[in-house]
C-alpha cells in the first residue's frame, strides 16, 4: 500500500502531464524516494493509480538502471566506471572499495548499510576518479580516502 504522502505526490505529478501514463517515471521516483526501492507490490500500486497494468509500469521501471527493483542498502554507492576514471585509477578505487565493503557490484553489505553499483560517467572527469554516495559527490579520489568517506554513512 502506498502512503497518503506518496499518493498525493503522485496525484500532483499526474496534474502536470497531458495523459496519466506520462507520470509513470515520476511516480516510480516518488515511491523509491520513500522506500529506497520499488517492490512488486509498489509496481501494482503505481499501476492502479495511473490506470496502467503492472506490466506496463514494470516495463518502464526495469528499463532504467536507477530504479531499483530489488532491496538496496541504506546508502547507495555509485562508482563511476567510465573512461576518465578508468584512466585515473578506477581499478585501485574499485579494489579498495570492494575490500572495505566485502561486496561486489550489485550487492548489499550484510548489515544493509551500503549497496555498491557501477555508474556511467558522473560528469566530473576533470576530477577523476569519482564516486557518489547518496547525494554526495566525491572527487579526486585516492584509495586511502575511502575508509573515511564510508565512515560518514551509518
Amino acid at each position, binding site marked *: 500500500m502506498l502512503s497518503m504522502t506518496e499518493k498525493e505526490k503522485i496525484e500532483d505529478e499526474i496534474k502536470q502531464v497531458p495523459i496519466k501514463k506520462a507520470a509513470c517515471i515520476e511516480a516510480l521516483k516518488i515511491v523509491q524516494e520513500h522506500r529506497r526501492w520499488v517492490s512488486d507490490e509498489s509496481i501494482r500500486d503505481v499501476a492502479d493509480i495511473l490506470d496502467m497494468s503492472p506490466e506496463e509500469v514494470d516495463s518502464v521501471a526495469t*528499463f532504467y538502471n536507477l530504479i531499483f527493483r530489488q532491496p538496496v542498502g541504506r546508502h547507495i554507492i555509485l562508482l563511476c566506471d567510465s573512461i576518465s576514471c578508468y584512466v585515473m585509477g578506477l581499478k585501485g578505487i574499485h579494489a579498495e572499495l570492494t575490500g572495505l565493503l566485502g561486496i561486489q557490484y550489485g550487492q548489499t553489505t550484510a548489515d544493509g548499510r551500503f549497496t555498491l553499483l557501477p555508474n556511467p560517467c558522473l560528469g566530473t572527469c576533470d576530477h577523476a576518479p569519482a564516486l557518489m554516495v547518496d547525494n554526495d559527490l566525491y572527487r579526486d579520489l585516492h584509495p586511502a580516502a575511502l575508509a573515511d568517506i564510508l565512515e560518514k554513512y551509518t
Partner: protein
Amino acid sequence: MERPLTQHITFPPLEIRQYEAIGGYQAVRKAVRHMQPKDVTALVKESNMKGRGGAGFSTGMKWSFVPMDVPGPKYLVANADEMEPGTFKDRWLLEGNPHQLLEGMIVAAYAIQATEAFVFLRWAYKDAAVAIRKAIAEAYDAGYLGKDILGTGYSLEMHLHTGVGRYMCGEETALLNSLEGKRATPRAKPPFPQVSGLFGKPTIVNNVETLSFIPHIINKGAEWFKSLSRTADGGTKIYGVSGRVRKPGAWELPMGVTMRELIEEYAGGMKEGYGFRGVLPGGASTDFLIDKHMDIQLDFAGVAAAGSRLGTGTMVVLDDQTCPVGFVHNLEHFFAQESCGFCTPCREGLPWTEKLLWAIEQGRGREEDLELLLRHTEWLGPGNTFCALAPGAMEPLQSALKYFRDDFERHIREHRCPYHDPEPAIPASVHLHHTHHL
C-alpha cells in the same frame, strides 16, 4: 578574451536579482517585447550557431522547421542529460549559472511559440537540480515564466525533469519518450521532433550550452557572435580536458583553438612521466586523434577534416601507460550496457565487440578477432543502426584499430596485456531488476 558563457559562473550561482544586475533577462525582455518569433529564429540562424550537443546542427535552422500555424501545445526541451563519458561541460553551466540557461530557454521557447519547456536533467547532477529548481521558482516570481510574460500575452510553463539513468536519454527522441514516462528507446526520423515530438507535438530539443548562448546572441547580435570565433563556426566553445594531464579542466575559448593550445597551454601538458598517445576530442563517441593532429583547429569542420568529430568538445587523453585495448574496452562496455536494446546491431553487436576486446585484453585474443572488430565498425556505422549510439561507439574503436593496431596485435601475439597484469573480470552487467527475467 570574451567569455560570455562562463564569465558570470559562480558557486553558488547568481540569484535572480544579481543575475538581472549584470544584464540578465534583457534578452527575454528584448525578444518577447520587441521581436517577432520568426525574427528571433532568423537572428539565431544568421549567427550560424551550431548545436553544442554533439551533432553540430544549425540551431536557427532547427527552430525554423517548427510549423508555426498548427494549434495546440508546442514544447522546448533543454537536454541536460550529459552522460557522454569524458564530458563535463554542461554541469558547469547548470550548477554555475542556471538563470542563463533559463533565459535562453525562454527566448528559444518564444521563438517557436512553445507553451511548455522542460529541463531534462540527469539524475547524478544533484546540485544542478537544486540550482535549477530555485532558478525556475525565481523566474516565475519575477514574471519571466508563467502566464502573460512581461505583459506581452506570451505564456510559458517550465518544469525540471530529473532522469533515472540511461545514456540513451540524451538522444533527443529517446529523451522525449522518457519525458512521456516511457522506456527511453529512440524514435524513427522522420518525422522529426520539430514536427512530431513530445506527445506528438512540435518540439525542439537543444543542448544546455546551445541554449545558454542564446541570450548573448539576442543581446549582442549575430556579427558579434561570429567575431568571437577564430573560424567560420561562430562563438566560443567550452572545451575540456581530462586524463593524465597536469591541469585537467574546462575553459571557454574561442571556437577554433588548436588542440595543441588546449592540451599544452590550458591543460598544462602531460603529467610528469606520461607521454601523449592520443585523444578523444569530443567525448567517448568520437574518433581518436593523435599527435599529428596537434595543430588542427577545434571546430566542427576542423575536427571532421582530421577524421573525427568535435562532439562535445571535452577531450579524454590517452597516455602512454594506459593500455589502448583496455581503454577502448572500457568504452565499449559502457556502450553495450547503455544500448536500449531496440535494434539488432547495437543490442547484439556492441556486447560482441566488448567481449572481443575483453578477450584480447586478457590475452585470449585471436588473430581473426581484429578482422571481426573491424567489420563491426563498418556494420554498426551510421544508417545501419536505429540511432546514433552504436555508430558513436564505433568511432573510438575504428580509430584505435587504425592508430594503435600494434598494441592490439601485441596482445594477441603475446597472449597478455603488455601494460598491466590481468584484472578480474568486470561484471558483464549489473542491474537491480527483478531477477526472474534473467
